[in-house]
């Protein structure tokens, strides 16, 4: 008698288990269904091992010559125009020789070179100090093309990267930038209060086969290409001209070269 009762109870228990496990099995079935998508690059996307830029400073005489390049960049990336110097946001801007190349400033320089405007931007270093400083990996060096990029979703606004960057290439949004954007480019997001931002080497344009906005606006004075392709235009320019880089002695290996 007892053994039969036990058997019945066992069966009941087992069937209860079978019934209650249905939602779990369903959940797993759904998981499997989710894996079927793919992601890929666009057909026209430009690729490189390490993007680099060569700026021919001989072609720029005054800051006015740099204006259209800066304007092109700041317009498409929704960079706000803040008058207060402490709140200023800049991706690309003109700098005096002594500030751009403080370790190289010799005495009795050619006045023409000394007074040339130098266009400075994020150097997309090969050994970026900002990436090491970031505690959330919001800033990272992209494996696929060497761009030092920011994931604004992840930035907590600690500004370690700004302290780490020897080039002052990063700006912090002390205020909500939206009211200060003159003309919003609706294709590109803005930023919010409390995140750091900087030049992204126009990653969104490279993805659709376009050159960076400043390069396009420079009409040949700026050259952009793959640093590790010996046949590339940038390599040709670096080979045939004397070029300098900003604060090279610090070992971050900047990827923006200046022909002087």
């Amino acid at each position, binding site marked *: 008698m007892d053994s039969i009762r036990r058997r019945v109870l066992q069966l009941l228990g087992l069937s209860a288990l079978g019934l209650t496990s249905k939602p779990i099995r369903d959940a797993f079935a759904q998981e499997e269904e*989710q894996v*079927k998508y793919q*992601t*890929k*690059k666009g057909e026209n996307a430009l690729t490189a091992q390490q993007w680099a830029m060569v700026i021919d400073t001989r072609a720029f005489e005054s800051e006015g010559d740099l204006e259209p390049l800066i304007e092109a960049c700041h317009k498409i990336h929704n960079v706000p125009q803040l008058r207060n110097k402490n709140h200023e946001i800049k991706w690309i801007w003109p700098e005096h020789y002594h500030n751009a190349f403080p370790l190289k400033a010799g005495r009795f320089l050619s006045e023409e070179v000394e007074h040339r405007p130098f266009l400075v931007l994020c150097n997309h270093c090969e050994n970026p100090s900002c990436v090491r400083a970031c505690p959330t990996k919001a800033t990272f060096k992209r494996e696929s*093309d060497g761009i030092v990029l920011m994931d604004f*979703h992840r930035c907590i606004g600690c500004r370690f990267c700004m302290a780490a960057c020897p080039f002052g290439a990063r700006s912090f949004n002390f205020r909500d930038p939206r009211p200060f954007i003159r003309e919003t480019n609706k294709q590109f*997001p803005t930023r*919010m209060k409390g995140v750091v931002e900087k030049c992204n080497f126009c990653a969104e344009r490279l*993805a659709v086969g376009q050159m960076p906005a400043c390069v396009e606006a420079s009409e040949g004075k700026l050259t952009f290409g793959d640093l590790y392709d010996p046949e590339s235009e940038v390599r040709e320019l670096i080979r045939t001209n004397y070029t300098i880089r900003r604060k090279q002695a610090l070992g971050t290996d900047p990827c923006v070269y200046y022909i002087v």
Partner: protein
Amino acid sequence: MSDKKLIIIGLVIFFIIVAFPLWYHFLFHGGKAAPAPELELTDKAKAAKVCVRSTQYMTAEHMQLLDVWRESVVRQAERIYVSPDGKGYNMSLSNTCLDCHSNKAEFCDRCHNYASVRPYCWDCHIDNPKEKS
């Protein structure tokens, strides 16, 4: 056991407070749930019939999908999403999602408000690319 009365009164008050959401709901809202919001589709969305994934998947998992998108676009430099049925989409909240669902107030906000979720997408991503500024 002389505190029996006090203990019972205390317990009654305790249960009344604990059950506040229940009796408040029955007394003042008639015990009925707030009506679920209705999704409004734009003409363009209606004409397209299918979204990036099935409607059921999109309703339940659109946040996971967007998470995959942002990871892929920013970190892997891959901007095309090929859905299981083989169709490719540009992964962009403002330029792809809101291209069809250009009625953010009726399509996104209504449901988010109902569920009391406050996504901060729109702090940076622009509401509606087609809307005139």
